[in-house]
């Protein structure tokens, strides 16, 4: 009951927020927080819940960004529709990668993600008749004001939260958890491990691509270095690790911390941000590998010994 009330309160706050805050910078900051919460959550479904670490999610992000932008520039299709085309394309792109690597035992998936992202970037960079190559693409259409963008990313992120919540709280959630903990045992118990991993990668790619399309529309400019850069992949990882890997709230909490920080450091030096991301990953993995959410939850529940809702089958590992 208390949880539901809290959720409603949060929802109301998020909806009326742009009516109360007119400061453009704060709105921009909130948009970026929501975007990174969305990206982190998508990465987390695969990395945190299923234990399949991807270093190449930028490939899906970029694919979303390029697809919706090209559809807008070539056919005048609104990016708010084009983003779903991009998401489906990213999903299709993820299928061969997943099928090829997930049927193998061992860290083949993690190894191939780096190369996968690189090849997609190389293709987009060199296919300049379609993509504009290194010059990138400019959006000159007026896509609305910052408040409109806020509500769109809010809707996307909430949709992602609901989908992922449904995923991890259903039978699927237990499947994913079982795959992460012991794949052989999971398969012995009838969990279709390979198929589950392929599906989760596809879902993850879908939502990351939506984020990519949104980013392109919001920035009005993209090029391969901007949307296919490894920093995009790292950002998803860092918000998830800081917030709490394998928790629903983690990436949002991580984004709330990381995004303002990186907006601040952006002005100081171009390498300040990547440096901080690297530092955060190393420090958190060393000293707080379960992340802030899991730690706080444990601190809150330990002294009173109250019954905790342990349906988020997460904090046990990592």
């Amino acid at each position: 009951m208390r949880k539901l009330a809290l959720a409603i309160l949060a929802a109301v706050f998020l909806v009326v927020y742009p009516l109360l805050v007119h400061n453009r910078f704060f709105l921009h900051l909130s948009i970026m927080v929501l975007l990174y919460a969305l990206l982190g959550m998508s990465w987390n479904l695969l990395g945190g819940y299923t234990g399949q670490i991807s270093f190449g999610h930028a490939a899906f992000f970029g694919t979303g960004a390029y697809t919706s932008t090209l559809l807008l520039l070539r056919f005048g299709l609104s990016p708010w529709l084009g983003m779903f085309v991009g998401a489906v394309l990213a999903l299709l792109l993820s299928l061969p990668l997943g099928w090829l690597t997930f049927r193998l035992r061992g860290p083949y998936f993690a190894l191939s993600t780096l190369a996968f992202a690189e090849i997609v970037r190389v293709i987009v960079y060199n296919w300049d008749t379609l993509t504009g190559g290194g010059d990138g693409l400019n959006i000159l259409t007026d896509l609305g004001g910052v408040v409109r963008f806020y509500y769109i990313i809010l809707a996307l992120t909430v949709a992602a939260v609901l989908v992922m919540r449904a995923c991890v709280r259903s039978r699927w959630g237990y499947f994913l958890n079982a795959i992460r903990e012991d794949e052989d045992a999971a398969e012995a118990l009838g969990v279709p491990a390979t198929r589950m991993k392929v599906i989760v990668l596809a879902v993850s790619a879908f939502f990351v691509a939506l984020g990519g399309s949104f980013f392109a529309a919001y920035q009005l400019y993209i090029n391969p270095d901007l949307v296919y850069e490894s920093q995009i992949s790292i950002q998803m990882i860092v918000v998830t690790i800081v917030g709490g890997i394998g928790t629903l709230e983690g990436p949002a909490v991580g984004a709330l911390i990381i995004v303002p920080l990186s907006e601040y450091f952006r002005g100081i030096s171009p390498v300040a941000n990547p440096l901080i991301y690297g530092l955060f990953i190393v420090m958190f993995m060393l000293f707080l590998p379960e992340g802030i959410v899991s730690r706080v939850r444990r601190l809150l529940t330990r002294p009173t010994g109250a019954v905790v809702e342990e349906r988020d089958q997460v904090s046990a590992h990592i």
Partner: protein
Amino acid sequence: MKIIPYIQSMVNGLLVGSLYSVIAMGLTIIFGVMRVINMAHGELIMLGMYVAFWAFTLFGLGQMAALLISLPLFLVLGAAIYGGVVSRVERRAGEMGTLLVTAGLAYLVANAAQLVWKADFRSLPSALTTRSVFLKGISLNYSLLWAFLAAVILTAVTYLFLIYTDAGRAIRATAQDREAAALMGVQIHRVNMLAFALGTALAGMAGVLLTPVFYVYPYVGRVFLVKAFVVVVLGGMGSIVGAWLGGLLFGVVESVASMFIPSGYRDAVGLVVFLLVLLFKPSGLFGRSRV
């Protein structure tokens, strides 16, 4: 004589491939012993390249000297990374944790290098790096030839170390079966540290040897990391001989293939090889099947 360019390209590929072998051996030793994929392997290569570059630029030291300096330097660095970071994270967060923390470390080191040494593409003076000897119409780059020789010696020494010394036997035993090795009295923690130090030293020394052939810049590690992955998968994960032959083979394939495709797609060759291996022989040329 149309065949000459192809032979030339194969020879160059073989020479560069010998360096890929050294890199891949380092990665595969670490993976074989502790199931850790060292995502920071590329950055260690990058550091090795800077060691060679600064050793020459500041002190006028040649590659031989740089190689001798880098051996103890990278052994200690590797032991420190293992003891200070990797082993701790592994205890608390397992395989997934080591993957993430080494990736974070890689990102940290690459960008720290960018901060300190700037993004400039540096290279050794061309008087040093462009000297060649000719052999029946095939030109052999002098420093590449010397790097090849050094790489062959490094490979041989590493191999003999693993086969004939007690420490090498302990490493192989741990790679084969960690529990059984522990029961036979092998100190797993020390073996892990040794393997990590060895792998790091191989990466650093490969970096030194690569310096005359490739530009030195902070993000160069990524390029070699991806190549190392391809070679390791090609040779079979955890296989030393596989890493060696895989490196040579990949060097040749990459070099010859780049004659036929536009230069922009050159880096894509690796991925195509990677995908073909995963598709048709995922255990690699010399690995046990893991399907």
